């Protein structure tokens, strides 16, 4: 048992999924040929001026509401001055004393324990560009496509005491941001990024220890590991009678260690001051109310709807809601086939299984929720067998298409063909006289053997019910 108690605070940057950048009309979409999504404004040419994207302001207000923040009635922008080649104006437009959102809370559930994480503030700023280092030619190239993409920075109070809580919090806010429709939260594309402040103190101490900041963490796994590694490092220092130095550290995922980036002494003096190019904004109650009312259904509300209205089990509902793409897919599906329980079961049982195996990519799905619902309906109404439903789903995943056409093309329907059923089962019984005898003498276990054989031979062309009935009838003769 460790003698120390870790305290952790987070700064999370989330790129807003607005169509255009925060101070110009360039596309804010991820990627693109380098420097193809910039203009004189976002590349900081002399004489250009920023004009605030009101959509981005609307989005950050939504973020504030979903994290139970106070929304400032008066908000303004400041310049954060520092030189770096990816920052074309050599200042970032950000917010210092008057951020849009203050004092919120996010409820998390870590290891079965519920807990409130306090949000200190959320502010709106612009993203910087990206440097690409060419090690071979020893040159660095700047890509300003990302420059000016709207970014919110969500700052928590130091309310975390384990990596598990941090991960639970990040999963929660990613879900909230996705459901509110304000960030796609693709960590691998950098649309959500996290800086972690960590300190440790002897258990029972009322004072916090000296903190370090971990930067550039780009996956939940890396974040969890980095926190654990950094806590261990600090513990070792204190155990050896050394001191933790306040500094910024980088996590090396491959080596599983953190290394110093810059110390407090090297920290920038950002020389913040109000940006004279952007007038402050004053919100009216009506504007805020309108934005609040436009927030779509949030995860907890969806779970409640599924459980209360559709009778879906809470764990299943949680599972579906935990992935917004799946959840939206489910909502589309039940519009087509009004049997939410069956659809939910087939999603949690079959679709998610295949997704976890990596067979299904929800970002690149070849079929619609509507088509999926049609498949569930075919299955539920005994039009196709379980096994053929899987075959059809496989085909839909692979090449797309409506389940009915696939069943037609591959001849996967259950047929009302009693002759085929009779002929197949008769043959199986004739070929397995011993087993038939066993059954007749009271060994019910072999019934399963006959079912299996028949299913295999019939390739789903008869319904399990019909097969079962016929076998029983035959074996009782």
């Amino acid at each position, binding site marked *: 048992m460790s003698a120390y108690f870790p305290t952790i605070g987070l700064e999370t940057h989330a790129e807003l999924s607005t169509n255009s950048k925060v101070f110009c009309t360039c596309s804010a979409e991820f990627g693109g040929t380098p420097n193809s999504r910039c203009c*004189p404004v976002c*590349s*900081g*040419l*002399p*004489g*250009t*001026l*920023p*004009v*605030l994207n009101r959509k981005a302001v609307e989005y950050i207000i939504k973020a504030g509401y979903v994290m139970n923040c106070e929304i400032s009635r008066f908000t303004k922008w400041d*310049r954060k*001055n520092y*030189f*770096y*080649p990816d920052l*074309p*104006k*050599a*200042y970032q437009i950000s917010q210092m004393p008057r951020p849009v959102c203050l004092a919120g809370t996010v409820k998390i559930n870590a290891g079965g324990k519920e807990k409130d994480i306090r949000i200190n503030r959320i502010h709106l700023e612009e993203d910087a560009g990206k440097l690409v280092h060419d090690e071979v030619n020893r040159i*660095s190239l*700047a890509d300003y496509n990302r420059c000016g993409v709207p970014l919110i920075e969500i700052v928590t109070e130091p309310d975390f005491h384990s990596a598990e809580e941090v991960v639970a919090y990040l999963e929660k806010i990613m879900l909230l941001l996705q459901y509110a429709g304000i960030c796609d939260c693709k960590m691998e594309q950098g649309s959500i990024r996290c800086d972690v402040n960590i300190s440790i103190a002897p258990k029972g101490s009322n004072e916090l220890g000296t903190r370090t900041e971990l930067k550039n963490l780009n996956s939940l796994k890396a974040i969890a590991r980095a926190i654990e590694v950094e806590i261990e490092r600090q513990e070792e220092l204190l155990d050896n009678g050394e001191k933790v130095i306040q500094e910024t550290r980088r996590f090396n995922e491959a080596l599983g260690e953190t290394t110093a980036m810059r110390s407090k002494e090297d920290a920038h*003096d950002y*020389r*913040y*001051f109000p940006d*004279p*190019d*952007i*007038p402050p904004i004053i919100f009216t109650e009506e504007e805020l109310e309108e934005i609040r009312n436009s927030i779509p259904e949030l995860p907890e509300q969806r779970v409640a709807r599924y459980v209360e209205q559709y009778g879906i089990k809470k764990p299943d509902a949680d599972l579906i809601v935990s992935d917004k793409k799946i959840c939206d897919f489910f909502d589309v599906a039940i519009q087509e086939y009004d049997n939410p329980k069956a659809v939910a079961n087939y999603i949690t049982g079959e679709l998610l299984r295949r997704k976890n195996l990596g067979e299904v990519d929800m970002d690149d799905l070849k079929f619609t929720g509507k088509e999926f619902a049609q498949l569930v309906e075919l299955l539920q109404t005994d039009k196709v067998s379980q096994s053929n439903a899987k075959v059809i789903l496989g085909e839909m995943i692979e090449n797309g298409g409506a389940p009915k056409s696939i069943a037609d093309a591959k001849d996967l329907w259950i047929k009302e063909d009693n002759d085929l059923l009779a002929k197949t089962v008769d043959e199986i019984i004739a070929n397995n006289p011993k087993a038939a005898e066993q059954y007749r003498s009271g060994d019910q276990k072999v019934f399963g053997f006959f079912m299996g054989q028949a299913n295999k031979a019939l390739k789903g062309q008869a319904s399990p019910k019909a097969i079962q009935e016929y076998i029983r009838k035959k074996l009782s003769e």
Partner: protein
Amino acid sequence: MDITRAKIRDLRKALDSKEISAAELCGEYFRNIEAGDGKVQSFITVTKEKALEMAANAQKRIDSGDVSPLTGIPLAIKDNICTDGVKTTCASKMLENFIPPYDATVIEKLNAEGYVLLGKTSMDEFAMGGSTQTSAFAKTKNPYDLERVPGGSSGGSAAAVSASFAPAALGSDTGGSIRQPASFCGVTGIKPTYGRVSRYGLVAFASSLDQIGPICSDARDCAIMLNAICAHDPHDATSARQPVPDFTEKLGQSVSGMKIAMPKEFYSDDIDDEVKSHVMNAAKVLESQGAQLVECSIPGLKYAIPAYYLIACAEAASNLSRFDGIKYGFRGEGRTFEELIRDSRSKGFGEEVKRRILLGNYALSSGYYDAYYKKALALKQQIIKEYNDVFDKADVILTPTAPTPAYKIGVQDNDPVKMYLADICTVTVNIASLPGISTTCGYTAEGMPVGMSVIGRRFDEQTILQCADAFEQTFAPTAPKF
């Protein structure tokens, strides 16, 4: 056609009546430039070829009767206003070869009118200075005395109009940079209310104070120019949504009953006696036309210079950070980007620019912000309040434009503080976002022009134009011989 101090409105008539073609007209101005700018050095770039092209297009419009007030009118543009495809240097080595890929909003508006670009005029480097002697390329001379400064920072624009190299020009004014050179060069220049003219495409010096405005032969031409360039601009969030009136509307109306305030601080012992007496004289002329002179006070004037230089330098330090040699402009040498940026900025900027960047960054540094920048903002509020109080009992304010007439080149070179103090008459107008116009009200014994400034309420350019014009109608200016 004699184009000496020709008025835009007269050129308009000459063009419309086919007395002269647009190409011939800009040819006349190029003739003057070629004959005289070697001495005056008002231009950094002369755009003869482009001008002839623009003149040809303007002529087509004139021939088809599709005429705007500035169609075919040749203009000079200060070299800190971006012109698509035409070098825009800010008179700095840093931007020696910078060709903007876009037009400033004012240039778009002038293009829509069908103006003709004569060239880009010199200025103090990045508009920092009052003499045009910090220009890296053309240290402009005063056409009335080539040994004297033309004022600044829009010294190139003022000298060009004064010397009849252009009928009118655009300048920019952060602390007097239109009005003071206009007064030194014996022409008329107006700084509109902050927000009247879009700043989009004006290379920023101090964003909360910068404003583009015209320098012309007289107030009437200034009104014509304002009509062309004032409008709300969606590309400039600080541009005003205020309705734009016809600025010529009040010209020629009597000043009878107009209340003219003369704050005593602007007539102190620090102001040159000759300057003071000419401005007082002008006040009497206006009084004789029925205006009422009102005594008043702006006690905050004594804090104006420190407040102005803190705000302006702080904003400038940030605005000029983008010049790092990475994306455009002058690039120095270095193995790391820190070295590259340091070398580019050390060599690309001149001394005065570097001095102001240092001042500004110092004022914004952690631990000093409250003592300097924040205090300067409080002084700004105080000065605004004092002006409001004056405008409760007066319609306009009359002051000298500068404490002295144009001085000899070199006298202020080693004394930046003295140079900063010379801005005392103009900076408060920028701090309070007011409109101000400077026009010539007399000549010194040595023949140098003396300017007076008329300051108005926010968005009341009409009244200051009316007042300046009323005086101009009684005054016969003399063009310089050089």
